[in-house]
């Protein structure tokens, strides 16, 4: 294929341009800020045109094409160290670019409606465009440093957007928390970059991946581990996942775009990109898989106990990301990317659906205020909702479709990707590469899949089925259901598009064994074919029968889970059912409800000791010894300066005397 420079420049450049136009004009002109239609259109085009460009590239590409490079300019060059602003177009980066710009476009569209009444409309879209720019840098970069630039860029945008309503203290705290947890991971990632550069003197992916033999086994282990720590920060895995639930403080489109569909998957992208390196170290693979499985079940158990509609979705995201890590650790890199794609569709749809619900609940609150009723309630609490399907049918239908998709009911998108992951985990239990540990992980994954279907349907039933509960719970809200309404067309368009994708998205990765059973050539998994040059997958060795059995088992698990959820929550029994679970699981339930007390643990184990040490030891050292030393020097210097002033008598003959002394000095040095 011909050089992609022009198209890549457009893909990268337009979001940046959009950011600059909306940012600068918005900053400098209050008149511009009120032109919301113009701002929205500009911002949308800045993402949609890149999507079309990416689509063009995609259509000119096939699974055997070699990577194409777009070298824009040399960023920095000192000695042997040279970094280019250069982009790599290949099968993996194209998939990611399509997801980012495609889902990004839909969410931009949705945001026009969602943010319509916000004062910071222009700022919001400027940030969103900046985020897209950074994210595209991350997925398209042809070297680690440029990737790191994007990596930090998305971190920054995430920070800015979580704290978008920064006047609310808890929201700006959440932004800081996200940023700090990310920094921990970034630090590890940076060290990994140093180690790679130290060993082979280049940060270029092509060079790194073709000179892997230059690394010792030890190097591979540590680099892999450090990259993993970096990825756990960005992709919200144990031990660094606690920022993501708090990140829901941002506007809902942000949660959908950044904290569900794109940014949080960048860790998965990075590991997939480096997959030839990871498969060289079974130990690291095992750690990745364990972290993934553990995160998946921990987050899923917490999700069961949550009442906040976005909170459930946030823990669900963490849990699904855990699935992806399990896939990575099981050598199923394609499956991980597959799940990234399908998850982007249904999770974005879920978040936008929740945004639609929150939107209407806030509307109810405003209307009540307009009527002079001083009532306050949490517009995100599912206990206040119920029966919404009557009032917002589009939202309900799309939400339900996405829920079915995430629950793993065939033939919707989530089923195929999740099934592939679980199957790979089981497969890893055999063979020389790994060990029986993977059977346990498979078990954990299956339980998590059960829990996923359960808590998602609990959420859907509680929100949309039964009757509207707000008037029963809070005085003064009688008759408030008349204010419930469906969201505007820009929002439902996005919802329906994503719901559609959630239905058909799975077909890019149909399981090969199905084809084999019916006498096909076993190549119906398109994604697998597409990525085979990049993802260093460990192949499945299971027999066709075993695979059928596993799949059937997975379907049964999901179906049973949905049935139980329907029985427990299908008809206004949320309160009793939750109480029943709490009594059945007792201490476990409390642990889940306390979110495993991780925040308190970090607070007690890291934050307090650090603060105490700084306060009691470092501060004293700083004030008494460091400052004292510095002040002493400064004082000495100043005093000697004042003393030296007295030489300057102002009498010309004294000056001449000094001149003579100088002559003597010079001649003495010269002659002796």
């Amino acid at each position, binding site marked *: 294929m011909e050089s992609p420079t022009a198209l890549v420049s457009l893909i990268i450049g337009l979001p940046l341009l959009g950011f600059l136009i909306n940012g600068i004009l918005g900053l400098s002109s209050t008149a511009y800020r009120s032109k919301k239609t113009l701002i929205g259109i500009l911002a949308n085009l800045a993402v949609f045109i890149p999507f079309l460009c990416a689509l063009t590239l995609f259509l000119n590409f096939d699974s055997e094409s070699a990577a194409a490079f777009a070298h824009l300019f040399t960023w920095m060059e000192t000695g042997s160290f040279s970094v280019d602003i250069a982009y790599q177009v290949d099968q993996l980066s194209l998939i990611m670019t399509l997801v980012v710009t495609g889902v990004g476009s839909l969410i931009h569209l949705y945001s026009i409606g969602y943010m319509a009444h916000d004062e910071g409309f222009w700022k919001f879209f400027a940030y969103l465009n900046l985020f897209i720019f950074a994210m595209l840098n991350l997925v398209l970069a042809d070297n680690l440093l440029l990737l790191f630039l994007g990596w930090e860029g998305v971190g920054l945008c995430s920070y800015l957007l979580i704290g978008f309503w920064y006047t609310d203290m808890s929201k700006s705290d959440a932004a800081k928390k996200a940023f700090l947890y990310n920094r921990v991971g970034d630090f590890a990632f940076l060290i990994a970059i140093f180690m790679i550069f130290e060993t082979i003197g280049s940060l270029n992916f092509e060079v790194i991946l073709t000179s892997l033999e230059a690394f010792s086994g030890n190097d591979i282990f540590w680099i892999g581990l450090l990259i993993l720590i970096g990825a756990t920060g960005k992709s919200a895995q144990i031990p660094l996942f606690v920022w993501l639930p708090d990140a829901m403080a941002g506007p809902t489109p942000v949660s959908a775009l950044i904290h569900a569909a794109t940014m949080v998957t960048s860790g998965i992208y990075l590991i997939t990109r480096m997959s030839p390196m990871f498969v060289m170290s079974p130990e690291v693979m095992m750690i990745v898989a364990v972290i993934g499985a553990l995160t998946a079940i921990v987050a899923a158990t917490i999700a069961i106990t949550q009442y906040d509609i976005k909170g459930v979705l946030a823990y669900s995201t963490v849990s699904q990301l855990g699935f992806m890590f399990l896939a990575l650790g099981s050598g199923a890199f394609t499956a991980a990317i597959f799940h990234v794609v399908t998850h982007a569709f249904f999770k974005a749809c879920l978040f936008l659906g929740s945004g639609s619900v929150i939107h209407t609940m806030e509307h109810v609150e405003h209307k009540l205020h307009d009527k002079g009723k001083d009532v306050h309630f949490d517009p995100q609490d599912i206990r206040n909702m119920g029966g919404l399907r009557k009032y917002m049918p589009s939202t309900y239908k799309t939400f339900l479709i996405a829920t079915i998709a995430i629950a793993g009911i065939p033939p919707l998108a989530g089923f195929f990707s999740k099934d592939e992951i679980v199957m790979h985990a089981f497969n890893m239990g055999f063979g020389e590469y790994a060990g029986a540990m993977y059977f346990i992980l498979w078990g954990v994954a299956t339980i998590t899949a059960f829990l996923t279907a359960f808590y998602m349907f609990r959420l859907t039933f509680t929100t949309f089925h039964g009757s509207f509960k707000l008037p029963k719970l809070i005085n003064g809200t009688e008759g408030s259901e008349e204010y419930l309404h469906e969201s505007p067309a820009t929002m439902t368009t996005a919802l329906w598009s994503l719901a559609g994708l959630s239905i058909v998205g799975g077909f890019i990765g149909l399981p090969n064994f199905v084809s084999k059973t019916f006498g096909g050539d076993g190549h119906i998994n398109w994604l697998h074919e597409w990525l085979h040059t990049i993802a260093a997958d460990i192949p499945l060795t299971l027999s066709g029968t075993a695979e059928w059995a596993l799949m059937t088992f997975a379907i049964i698990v999901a179906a049973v889970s949905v049935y139980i959820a329907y029985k427990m929550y299908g008809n206004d029994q949320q309160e009793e059912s939750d109480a029943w679970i709490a009594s059945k699981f007792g201490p476990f339930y409390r642990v889940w409800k306390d979110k495993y007390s991780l925040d308190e643990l970090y607070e007690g184990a890291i934050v307090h000791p650090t603060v105490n040490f700084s306060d009691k030891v470092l501060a004293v050292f700083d004030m008494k010894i460091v400052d004292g030393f510095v002040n002493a020097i400064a004082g000495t210097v100043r005093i000697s300066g004042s003393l030296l002033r007295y030489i300057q008598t102002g009498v010309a003959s004294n000056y001449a005397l000094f001149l003579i002394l*100088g002559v003597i000095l010079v001649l003495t040095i010269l002659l002796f």
Partner: protein
Amino acid sequence: MNYLLDLQSFLPGIIVAVAGLAAIMLEAFKKSANTSFSVTIGGIAVALLFAIQSLYGEAGTAFSGMIVYGGVGAFGSVVVLLGALFCVTISREYLRDLDLHNGEVYGMILFSTTGMLGLAVSNDLITLFISLETMSICLYVLAGLMKNEKIGAESALKYFLLGAFSTGFLLYGIALIYGATAATNLTEIAAAAQPTFLFLCGTGLLFVGLFFKVAAVPFHMWTPDVYQGTPTTITAFMATAAKSATFVAFVLVLTRMLPSSEIGDWQSVLQVVAILTMIVGNLIALAQDNVKRMLAYSSIAHAGYLMVGLAAGNEAGYAGVLYYLFAYTIMNAGAFGVIAYYERNHGLDFTEIDSYAGLGFKVPVMGVMLSVFLFSLAGIPPMVGFIGKYYVFAAAVQAGLIPLAIIGVLASAASVYYYLRVMVYLYFKEAHKEYSLKTPGFLFKWTLILLAVLTVYYGVEPVLPTSSLMELISSYYTV
């Protein structure tokens, strides 16, 4: 027509001299200082063009080896002319306010510049001496411009007395050198030099003369008094152009007359004087409460840093000195310019640091620019002053003079205090009373803005990297 070629090689100097004659004749006949001003600007600008042209031309000697052209000399001429140009453009408005604006001032500046140009290209001790005197005598007159003020008369008299004294040493040194080597031409001296008593004494006294002009410790005593008593923009001229010219002459003497370290231990002399200059200059500057006087001591300190480059005695050092002169000219002309702007608003007392309280917010652009210049003088990146300091200190390290470089860096660190102190007053102190400053004139303001932009630009993008300056220097050894 060898004669015409000779003239051509000193064209910038000739143009400036003719412009000077024109300036005083215009004053005598038309009594129009503005016309003189225009002629001055034009003359310097044209001379600058020729100097830049010769910078890119070949290097050689002219007037039977009396002067050099191209190479270091051309670079020196460019720096001197830049200094003169900037000082003249900011002078008009300032001198008008002091009621000192007349054609003779420009004549004197131009004649002085002629001397500086001669100094920057001198290849012979006679040329050096005559140029030095041409420059100095005009500067004595300029120092006494404020002749009705006590401080002005004091300034001129002190400068003249001590200047004459030091010139005596210089001339005596030249005589001794001639006695030892029977030559005044720098290269001929280098060929005939032996480390005899006579020659060493001669060199020492020659150095003393030059040390005096660049205000190195302990020959610096005149500087604060003279700088304070001279109209500020003229001070800028003295501190930039005159100092640059003398340093270029110093480089010429060191590279052409003393290329071998076997002829006397002049490197030690430079080291000792450099250390003294840096320490004393910076320490006394710390204790100053008058901004103009503080800048005078700061200019002494900067002479110390420059001397570090000379003491390094290698090509990197000389190249560093040349680059530093360029940097120093830009940032110091700017700093004095802003000081002049503040001063002329409320008389001479306005140079006391107390009176700077809260000034930064009065005319924001001026406050910001003063901050830029002071940051640059303090050697804080990304300003051009940092690059200059980096070059000279790096050269010293390269030459193995690590203690010297360390003292330089420490002294430079101490200097941050008194530069930042001004900014503290500008921005962090409350103004004593309500008053408003004059609006700066168009030419004045934009000259300063240009200087500030250059200060930052060359700090971010040093387009004169050491390598091309090194080529200049080494092209010079082979002439």
